[in-house]
């Protein structure tokens, strides 16, 4: 034990400058999916030592901004597109046209090739069947259902001021209904919301734990909680699900760009794409098919049919304004 501690200290004391054949990847993929993808990457590129740090989107963004003066990472992998466009982060990136990037529809990558997204996630409700039954409620099918007074105090959703998932939910409602009607709908919804929770995954976990009947969250969280065995179903809102892309990018200050580029190229290989299809409901590159476990959780085969065609540009541009308006209306 002592030796491992000592070895750890020594390893950490070694110069931090990237060695040839070594890259550091920052990712916001969920912990278990990141580990699965990383295993494949290591098999495909045995000569590269890939160090991966996994943090939630917000924590990772704060860290990238704080490290801006001397970035420690070579690659950003699976990181919310609406956050990667934050100027403080976008400034640290370098354009790279990854091999095979043209298989991604233009809507899912940056026009100047600063980033591209191979995967994404969508808004989904986590509904606790045990609690719904106990309270004599129905399983809601849409955002419109959630304003019914019978759900009062039984719905939790993420706070858009602190959660990217929360923001895509609010922003997609405003985009699909138009601002005026959208805000008046959110006013109605607000009457039923028990809590605006400060993370995107927690509302689903709260519903899974039976604290509330409905937690507005995102698809993968719902599917995994169902797999854990919680008495829960996933509902994709009938109006169309707001969605977020998970982007990959090259860091301009990387001291090992050759390997960083190889890694980015790898994220587009058929083998990687196959793995994405095992873990993700939104994969922007064709190939693979929806795994059985997704279908049994309630995901339709053609995920495009349920996605709301999000205007990512507008969503990014309007973020500050929408958040302050949202806080003015619904907080304190």
């Amino acid at each position, binding site marked *: *034990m*002592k030796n*491992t*501690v*000592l070895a*750890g*200290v020594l*390893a*950490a*004391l070694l*110069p*931090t400058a990237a060695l040839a054949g070594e890259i*550091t990847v920052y990712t916001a993929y*969920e*912990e*278990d999916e990141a*580990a699965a993808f990383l295993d494949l990457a290591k098999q495909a590129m045995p000569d590269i030592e890939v*160090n991966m*740090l*996994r943090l*939630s989107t*917000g*924590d990772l963004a*704060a*860290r990238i*901004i*704080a*490290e801006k*003066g*001397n970035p*420690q990472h070579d690659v950003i992998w699976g990181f919310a597109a609406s956050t990667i466009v934050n100027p*403080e*982060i976008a400034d640290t990136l370098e354009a790279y046209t990854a091999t095979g990037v043209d298989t991604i529809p233009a809507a899912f990558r940056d026009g100047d090739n600063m980033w591209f997204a191979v995967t994404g996630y969508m808004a989904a409700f986590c509904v606790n069947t*045990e*609690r719904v039954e106990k309270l004599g409620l129905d399983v809601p099918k849409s955002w419109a259902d959630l304003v019914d007074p019978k759900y009062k105090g039984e719905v939790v959703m993420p*706070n858009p*001021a*602190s*959660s990217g998932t929360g923001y895509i939910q609010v922003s997609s409602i405003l985009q699909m209904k138009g601002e005026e009607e959208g805000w008046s709908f959110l006013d109605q919804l607000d009457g039923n919301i*028990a*809590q605006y929770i*400060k*993370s995107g*995954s927690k509302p689903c*976990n709260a519903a*899974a*734990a*039976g*604290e*509330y009947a409905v937690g507005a969250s995102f698809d993968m*969280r719902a599917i*995994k909680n169902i797999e*854990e*065995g919680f*008495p829960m179903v996933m509902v994709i809102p009938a109006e169309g699900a707001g969605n977020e892309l998970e982007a990959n990018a090259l860091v301009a200050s990387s001291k090992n760009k050759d390997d960083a580029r190889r890694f980015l190229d790898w994220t587009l290989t058929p083998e990687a794409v196959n793995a994405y299809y095992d873990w993700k409901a939104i994969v922007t590159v064709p190939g693979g098919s929806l795994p059985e476990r997704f279908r049994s959780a309630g995901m339709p085969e053609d995920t495009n049919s349920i996605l709301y065609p999000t205007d990512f540009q507008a969503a990014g541009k309007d973020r*500050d304004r929408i*958040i302050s308006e949202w*806080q003015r209306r619904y*907080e*304190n």
Partner: protein
Amino acid sequence: MTEQAVASTPPARRFRIGDSSFALVVSIAVLVMMILFLVIPVGSILLRSFVGATGWGLENYTETLQSGRVWELVGNSLAVAVLTTILSLALAYIYAYAIQRTHVLFKGFLRLVVMTPLFAPSLVQAQGLIFLFGRNGAFNRFLGFDFDIYGFWGIVLADVLYTFPYAFLILSAALAASDARLYEGAVVMGAKPFRIFRTITLPSTRYGIAAAGFVVFSLTITDFGNAIVIGGDFNVLATEIYNKVIGQGKFGLGAVIGVLLLAPAVISKLLERRIAKRQHALITDQSKPLTVRDNRRRDLIFGLYTYAVACVFLAVPLIVLLASLVKLWPYNLAFSLKHYSFDVQNGAQPLWNSIGVAFATAIFGVILVTVAAIVSQKFRTPLRGPISFLAILPTSIPGMVLGLGYVLAFNSTANPLNVLYGTFPLIVLLYVYYNHAQGFLIATTSLKQISATFDEASTMLGGSQLRTLFRVTLPILWPTLFGVGVFFFMRAMVSLSAVIFLITPQTQVAAVSVLQLSDRGANNQAAAFSVCIMLIVLAALLLARCVLWLAGARHVSLIR
């Protein structure tokens, strides 16, 4: 002092010069460390409060202070902090009194059990409360109650549990020192117990109460863990920093609120001198240790109170243990050990990392805190003011702010200490300075009670201050310091919010694994990982106990 020692000492005058230059050198060293590992990191993030969209200026301040929102948040934060401070101090004082001044049974157990909130990451404490009192928690689900923990009262409950051990440690140290002569005199004069309490006990623990009050207030007002998990829609200043920094990547606006949170430290510094002036030293050259008299009725009443409190504190770790041992809490209560085969990144390795880090933190923490306490209490150099202020400043800094400050300061290639970035030693230093105030206050509370007459007597006999320190002060103080070491160990095993920004793929610590598991909804596995952390902390306490025993200090308790 032996005759030989007196005879061999050179003239006192030279000693004074030696003493004061020695004092100055040590003071400077303490201050330099504080500047490097506290002022520069905190300064580099607070400086961001002056960087707006259009460059340097007060833009962030005008934006924050002009919105009505911030004043509501100040009101919310104050309401939570004031109520928590009153409740926590009152409950902990009575508890500490029971342990130090009555004959309640099982004192060792009672001391240990109120420390349990320090045994696991605060995340787990909050999760444990939800397992117990949540809308679908054990009470509501299995016992048919119907209450809702989320909101103001939930935060207050969680914060009282979270701050109680700190208040207890300081108050217990304050109540441990006493001079029996005062009490004997009072009894001879026919004073009633309550009058004795009011005129002797309470005034003699004034500094301890003030120190504990400051710590509890600061910890509560800067804590965002409990507010986020249990607060529901009740927003406070600390969650607003989270919104700005983590939610929106706006360091400048978050830093403004960080600056507001420094106010309690500044105010308490201004008040400290007034309180300290009235503190008498309790242990003097003529002191007699207090022997507690027998009183059945008193012991029964205090006994009932302490056992009731102990039950509340035991409930949380027990429910976490239970959740770690069932298939799926609260739906499938069949016994299962599957959550103990950790499938989180790096498996159990972070536990070993944390043990090493926690040991190092304990050792460096005790040394740095003790030297700082001595410098600020015993050395009359012009630096003692700044040192004692900086020593308590860390409680006013949210972990998130300090962690990001470390990134800004040590990741910069302009900093010669840049080599530390991404290493365990930096994590150790972060833990030491993050918990500096509590360790410092425990040490000073004890130090203040040791009379200056020792120094005077010793100096008159020709002994240097330094000699007094090693011969008199430290021998009286060392059990307290051992306890401070254990405190640092526990904090380093479980602190999360600051270290999250410093870990690298090679330097992951145990608390982060708990966060990763909790993030992905694996609450049972997170509980299992926390149980391992708790067992390690318990084992460390046991080990420390054995060390004390072997060292011959059999009657000294680790937690006072």
